[in-house]
């Protein structure tokens, strides 16, 4: 196929419906129209012109707005499906995801897991959907923007009569006397139109940039999508949880073992009557306790250059800080937020060896619940051997073996062998909180409770997001595009003289009500006729038919 040369001399690309320059209808269909479809200026859109090769078909598929809307709907539905049950990263760690979904949500949970919805937002098909939206946005925009831009650039002042006639706002009237366009021209300039003149014909245009609004908006959206996708690039995005006990020093996850954090103290403040604002008293009476501050006092360390992970000696102190809710610890693009806490976790438990009859005690054993010793020697022939330790005792299995569900000492239980001068071979005793079992017959001795030590545990989230500024830039461009397209209208007015008649046509991409009012004001008192709305007349006729 060859380019199409219009009778005005302008060479149009294949598939053009209305000549880019003079606006003459180049296809038979367009010539038959009562009003032209002006949405893309009758320009040659690739998707409407070629449909032969595979590339054409792919292009045409993605250039359809309908397809784009369906992709968005599918993504929305998929995204909402992912919120029905918690995602994989949100699960408690003591069960595998498969067990958790089954136990918590039954067969529905099992199905959910089998379908792979436990990591929906990271699944290949979800990313594919997002990518397809991106492709659709780019192709939709290019398919429309390039020809539209060409057409608006090439438009000339004097349009073909047929083009004028098929605008929604049009009038053709004989005028008496020599009405000049001078007054109109002045008025148009007052209304901020850019006016061009050619052979005594006028062309006034304003706010063409408003037509680019949707495309600017799409550029913003694409930048936003790229930012969202960049989260999957290592080093761009970190979101980790760190449980840290008072006194502990731990590597901060997500920092490549470079930074360590020491929890010096966890503080929980509540509002106090009398101390705080007295206006709160009534609320405190009703609710009881209200938290005022969650705070972890920490020290941040950095591993020295060249030190290997695990070499704890080579640490350099960076700073002391107080992490509060909304006031994170910040360093090297990382923010560490106060997230959760667990008060009074057991640290040590002290028990004493006691003769059941005489109630006499023979020394204490202080057991570090995170690092218990095997043997505690109490001198003078008394000794306690720890033959079993169950940090989170949940009961006995069928074979009598005690069970522990986790290494966290929430409900510690011990199996002791107690040695005394009377029992050199030892007596066996099972001790849990408020429980004392003697599995091998009656004992003379027992381990009685003497005291505990506790400490607080603080949960911190480690956050790093280098994509944030990209999202902000994308979002800002998105908004600029919306505003540009929504708050301005592209308006054009054509005035022509033809054999004693004057032809006036006007076009706007939106808000015909506005342009009609403006036209009336511009033409008022000039002796020129005001264009009529050809579509309104049609509508009224249709209405009459309905009735």
């Amino acid at each position, binding site marked *: 196929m060859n380019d199409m040369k219009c009778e005005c001399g302008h060479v149009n690309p294949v598939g053009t419906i209305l000549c880019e320059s003079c606006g003459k209808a180049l296809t038979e269909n367009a010539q038959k129209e009562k009003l032209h479809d002006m949405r893309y200026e009758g320009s040659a859109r690739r998707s409407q012109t070629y449909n032969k090769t595979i590339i054409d078909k792919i292009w045409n598929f993605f250039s359809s707005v309908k397809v784009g809307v369906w992709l968005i709907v599918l993504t929305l539905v998929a995204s909402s499906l992912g919120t029905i049950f918690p995602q994989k990263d949100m699960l408690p760690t003591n069960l595998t995801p498969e067990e958790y979904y089954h136990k918590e949500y039954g067969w529905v949970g099992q199905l959910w897991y089998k379908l792979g919805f436990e990591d929906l937002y990271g699944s290949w098909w979800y990313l594919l959907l997002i990518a397809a939206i991106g492709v659709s946005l780019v192709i939709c925009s290019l398919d429309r923007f390039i020809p539209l831009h060409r057409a608006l650039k090439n438009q000339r002042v004097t349009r073909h009569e047929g083009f004028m006639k098929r605008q929604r706002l049009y009038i053709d009237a004989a005028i008496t006397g020599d009405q000049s366009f001078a007054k109109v021209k002045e008025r148009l300039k007052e209304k901020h139109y850019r006016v061009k003149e050619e052979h005594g014909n006028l062309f006034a245009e304003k706010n063409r940039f408003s037509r680019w609004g949707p495309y600017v908006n799409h550029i913003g959206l694409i930048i936003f999508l790229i930012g969202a996708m960049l989260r999957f690039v290592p080093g761009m995005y970190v979101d980790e949880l760190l449980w840290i006990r008072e006194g502990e020093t731990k590597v901060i996850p997500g920092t490549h073992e470079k930074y360590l954090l020491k929890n010096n103290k966890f503080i929980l403040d509540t509002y106090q009557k009398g101390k705080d*604002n007295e*206006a*709160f008293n009534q609320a405190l009476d009703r*609710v009881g306790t209200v938290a005022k501050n969650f705070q972890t006092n920490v020290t941040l360390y950095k591993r020295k250059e060249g030190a290997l992970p695990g070499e704890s000696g080579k640490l350099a102190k960076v700073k002391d800080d107080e992490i509060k809710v909304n006031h994170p610890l910040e360093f090297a693009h990382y923010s560490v937020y106060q997230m959760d806490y667990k008060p009074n976790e057991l640290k040590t438990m002290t028990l004493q060896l006691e003769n059941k009859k005489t109630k006499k005690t023979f020394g204490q054993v202080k057991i570090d619940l995170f690092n218990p010793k095997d043997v505690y020697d109490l001198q003078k022939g008394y000794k306690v051997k720890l033959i079993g330790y169950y940090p989170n005792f949940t009961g006995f299995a069928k074979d009598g073996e005690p069970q522990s569900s986790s290494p966290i000492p929430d409900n510690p239980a011990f199996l002791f062998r107690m040695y005394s001068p009377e029992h050199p071979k030892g007596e066996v005793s099972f001790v849990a909180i408020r429980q004392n079992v003697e599995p091998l017959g009656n004992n003379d001795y027992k381990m009685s409770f003497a005291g505990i030590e506790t400490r607080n545990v603080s949960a911190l989230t480690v956050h790093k997001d280098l994509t944030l500024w990209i999202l902000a830039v994308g979002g800002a461009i998105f908004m600029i595009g919306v505003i540009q397209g929504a708050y301005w209208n592209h308006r054009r007015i054509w005035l022509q003289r033809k054999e004693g008649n004057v032809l006036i046509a006007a076009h706007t991409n939106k808000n015909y009500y506005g342009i009609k009012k403006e036209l009336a004001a511009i033409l008022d008192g000039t002796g020129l006729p005001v264009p009529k709305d050809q579509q309104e007349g049609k509508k009224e006729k249709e209405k009459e038919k309905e009735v």
Partner: protein
Amino acid sequence: MNHLLNISSNLLFVAFILYLIGTFFFGGAIRSKSKKAEGASMNRWGLIGITISIVGFVCQLGYFILRWVVSGHAPVSNMFEFTTFFGMMLVAAFIIIFFIYRTAVLGVFALPVALLIIAYASMFPREVNPLVPSLRSYWLHIHVTTAAAGEAILAISFAAGLIYLVKSINQSRKSKSTLWLEFVMYILISVVGFIIITSIFHAANYTQRFDWVDKDGVEQVGKHGLPLRLLLST
């Protein structure tokens, strides 16, 4: 302190009453409109209505400022405060739009809705509450207030759109448009009904309590402010 808090609550009550009175004036404004020419809807009734609305709004603004002074934080920190603020923004949005378009009919919608919203708000605990750590952020002032203001302005646009549809849709004939208009109306009446019913049961101090054992064998207690007997007895 308590003294200021009392003044604050009283101002809210005054605003409530003024909105009620304002509603009647706007009602009068659209009734007497037929006598005058189209476009001149700013008649005496409308003028009194808008004056009362502005006075009511100023009173409610007084409630807001005094409560801020007493509590030390922006009073948008719980359901009562947020909902009353939303009602206030609704009136503010109406006043702004009234001065652009001079449509009294919008007042017939905006003021009673603001009334209902304030009434609904007072069903939540009303005392000044201390801020939990997560709310102790400057975002409380920015995010919550702009969200409420935006929602309020959208609510007024919604009302304007609905009024337009009621006027322009041909309701003498059954069509898709009349069906969906009716659907919107049904939802609106349901919301109003819900607010009225919950208000009545709340005023009567009614709570329905039911106990159950969840799947982990833990006993749970549920409380509800409305009777659910019909549903539960099956």
